C-alpha cells in the first residue's frame, strides 16, 4: 500500500497504489481530511492502481467519504490508472458522479465478495453459513450503494442493480469503455 499526494493549486491528486487494507484506508481518509480541512480543497483527484483489498476497509472508506460521494459542495474525481480491481473498482465507481474516469489502458474487475480461509483451518456448517450470510450482506450492500449512487430515480435502481449483479457474477476484466456503458465510470481519458 502506498499513498502519494501531489499538491496542485487547483486540484491536488492522491495516488493510491497497492492493496486496500485498513491502514491504507485510514491513511487515505487522513489525507483527504487534511486536503479538505487545512488546504481547503473542494475537489480532489484520487488516482487508483490497486488489485483490490478488504471489504471492511472498502466499507469503512465509502462511509467516510460520503460527503465526497454525494457531492455536498465537494468533488472526488476518481481515475483508474493501470488496474482497478475488486474493492478498488468499487472505490473508482463511487467517486462523484460525472468525475469517474479510467485511462484507456486500464483493467477493471468487478466481482462478488469473496472470502479467504487460511490453509488448514476448519469450519463448521454453522460457521460457513454465517460467513456465507456475511458475504451476501456485503454483496447486497455494495450493489445497493452503487445503484443508489448511479441512479437518481429510485424506480431505476432495481433494474440497474440486477444488471450489475449479472456483470459481477461473470467475474471478468472489462475494458474502460464497457464500464462506461454500465455507468460504472463516466469517461475514458
Amino acid at each position, binding site marked *: 500500500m502506498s499513498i502519494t499526494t501531489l*499538491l496542485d*493549486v*487547483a486540484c*491536488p491528486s492522491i495516488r493510491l497504489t497497492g492493496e486496500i487494507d485498513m491502514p491504507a484506508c485510514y491513511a487515505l481518509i487522513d489525507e483527504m481530511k*487534511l486536503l479538505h480541512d*487545512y*488546504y*481547503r480543497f473542494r475537489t480532489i483527484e484520487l488516482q487508483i492502481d490497486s488489485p483490490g483489498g478488504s471489504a471492511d476497509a472498502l466499507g469503512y472508506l465509502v462511509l467516510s467519504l460520503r460527503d465526497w460521494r454525494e457531492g455536498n459542495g465537494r468533488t472526488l474525481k476518481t481515475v483508474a490508472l493501470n488496474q482497478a480491481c475488486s474493492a478498488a473498482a468499487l472505490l473508482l465507481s463511487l467517486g462523484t458522479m460525472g468525475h469517474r474516469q479510467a485511462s484507456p489502458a486500464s483493467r477493471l474487475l468487478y466481482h462478488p465478495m469473496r472470502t479467504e480461509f487460511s490453509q488448514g483451518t476448519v469450519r463448521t456448517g454453522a460457521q460457513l453459513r454465517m460467513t456465507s450470510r456475511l458475504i451476501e450482506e456485503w454483496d447486497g450492500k455494495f450493489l445497493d450503494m452503487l445503484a443508489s449512487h448511479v441512479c437518481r430515480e429510485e424506480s431505476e435502481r432495481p433494474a440497474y442493480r440486477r444488471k450489475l449483479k449479472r456483470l459481477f457474477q461473470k467475474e471478468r476484466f472489462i475494458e474502460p469503455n464497457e464500464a462506461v456503458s454500465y455507468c460504472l465510470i463516466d469517461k475514458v481519458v
Partner: protein
Amino acid sequence: MADERPLPFTGAHPAFRVRGWREMLGAGEEIAAVNMARHFLITGETGSGKSLSGVIPLLEAALRYPERDAYKAYRAKAGKKADAREQLRPAVLVVDPKHELGEVVQREAAGREITTVQYGTPGKRLYFFEGRDIVSMGASDAVDSILAQSDFYTRDLAGTREPSWCIQAGNLIKDFVAVDMFLARQGIDKLNAFWSRVRTKMAGEQEVKAILPLLCYNRDNYFRAMAALVAYSTGDDGSLPLAAYLYACEEINIPGELTARLVSLVTLYHSTRSGLVWTANGILCDLASEELCSCVSLNPMEAPENTFSVCAMLERGDALVYIPTISPSAVADTVGRCIKAKFMEFVFTRENKVRPFAYIVDEAHGFITAGEQDGEQSLLDRCRAYRTMVVLSTQSIASLKVRLEGSAAFAGSALQVMLNNCGNALYFRSSDIATQESVQARIPDCPMAGRPHVIKVRPLTSLATGSCYALRADGGWGLFQVQL
C-alpha cells in the same frame, strides 16, 4: 468633562447578517455583534472582488442592522432591558473614493439623513470646533488641534531632524489666532475694524497690492488673511506686511504677550526669518485652500453657515459619505483627518452610547493616517467597546505601509496596531508579499509535520475573483468564495 465610559455590545445583541457570505458564516450568514466590532481588514488587488464581495456586503449589513427577525429574537430574550430597535440602527461614515459605496448608502438608507461631502466641491461642511467651548478655548489649544490635522505640519514634524522650525512656525500661527480671538471676544466688528486698519497701513505699497482684498476676516475661510500676510513677509525690508500688522496691533493696544513671537520674528536675521515664514506659509497655504474650506471650517471663533453636525449624526444614526480625491493630496489628507478626528471624538464622548457606529473606508491606503487624534490605530484598539465597527479595505498591506511611512515616525508600529486590531480579515487575490506574509503569520501551520503552509500551496495570486482567505475574530479561518 465628557463621560467616556464605554458601552460595548454583548453576546445577546442581534447578529449582523452579511448577505453572500453563506460559505463563510453558515446558512444564517450571521456575525455576532461583538465580533463585528472587532473590525475588518480587506485586502485585494483591483478586480479581485474585494469591494463587491467584501466591502459592500458589510456596508449593507451595517445599514440594515438590526434586521427584523434577529431583533425580535433579541427582544424576546432581553425583555425590557433590550435596546430599542431604532437606537441600534448604526450611524455610518463611509469613505468612498471610487463612488461605489454612496449608491449603496442611498439604497439602504432606511430613513437616515445622508450627507455627502465631496473633496473640493462646495456643499455642507464639517465644523471642526463643533462641541468645543469656543468662548473659553485658548488660541494655543485651537491651533494645536488644527495643526494636528495639518498634513504639511505633521509630515514635516515627523520627517525633519529639526522640529523646532515647524514648532516655531506653529507658534507664529498661534499669535495670529490669539490676536483674532482677543478681538472677536469683544465683537466681530472689532475684528473687522482691525483688519481694515491693517489694509490701510499697507494701502500705499505697490508690492502688496495684490493681497489687500484678502486681508479681512473671512468667516468661511478663516486662514486666508493670515496665509496672504505670511506669504508676502519674506522680503529684506523688514517684512512689510508683517510689520504693518504689528503696527496695527500696537495702535489698538493688543496685549504684547499675544504678539511676542511675531515681534521677535521681525527682528530675526533675514534668512532665519525666511525659513520660519516659509514653514508657516506651507501650513497656512493648506489651511486656507479652497478645497479644504469647501469641506471643513477651521474658524475657531464662530461656525459658518451650511455645516453639518457630527454629534447629531451619531445621535440620530445618520450617514456621511465622504468622497476624497483618488490622487494623493496633502489638503485632501487634512480634510480626511479632520472628518475622522471629529467622528472619533464624538464616538468616545457622546452621551448616548447605545447607537452603534460603522466606519467604512474603501481604498484605505489613500486615506488612513497615524496621528494621535485621527489615526486609525488610535481608534481601532479601543472603539470596539463603544459599539464601533471599522472596515478598512485596501489594495495591499504594503500600500498601507507606504502610506503610513510618509505620515508618521512610528508608522511601522501604527500599522502593526491596525493589523492586530482587525480581528476579522479577508484576503482577496493579491501579489503583495507583505500581505502574503501577514496571511502566513495569521493562519496556523499545517497540522501534519513536514507539510507546507496552506498559503504556499494556494497562494493569494491563485485565488479566483470573489474568493478569499477569511480570518474570523472567533479564531476560525478558511478559503471561501463569496456567492453574490
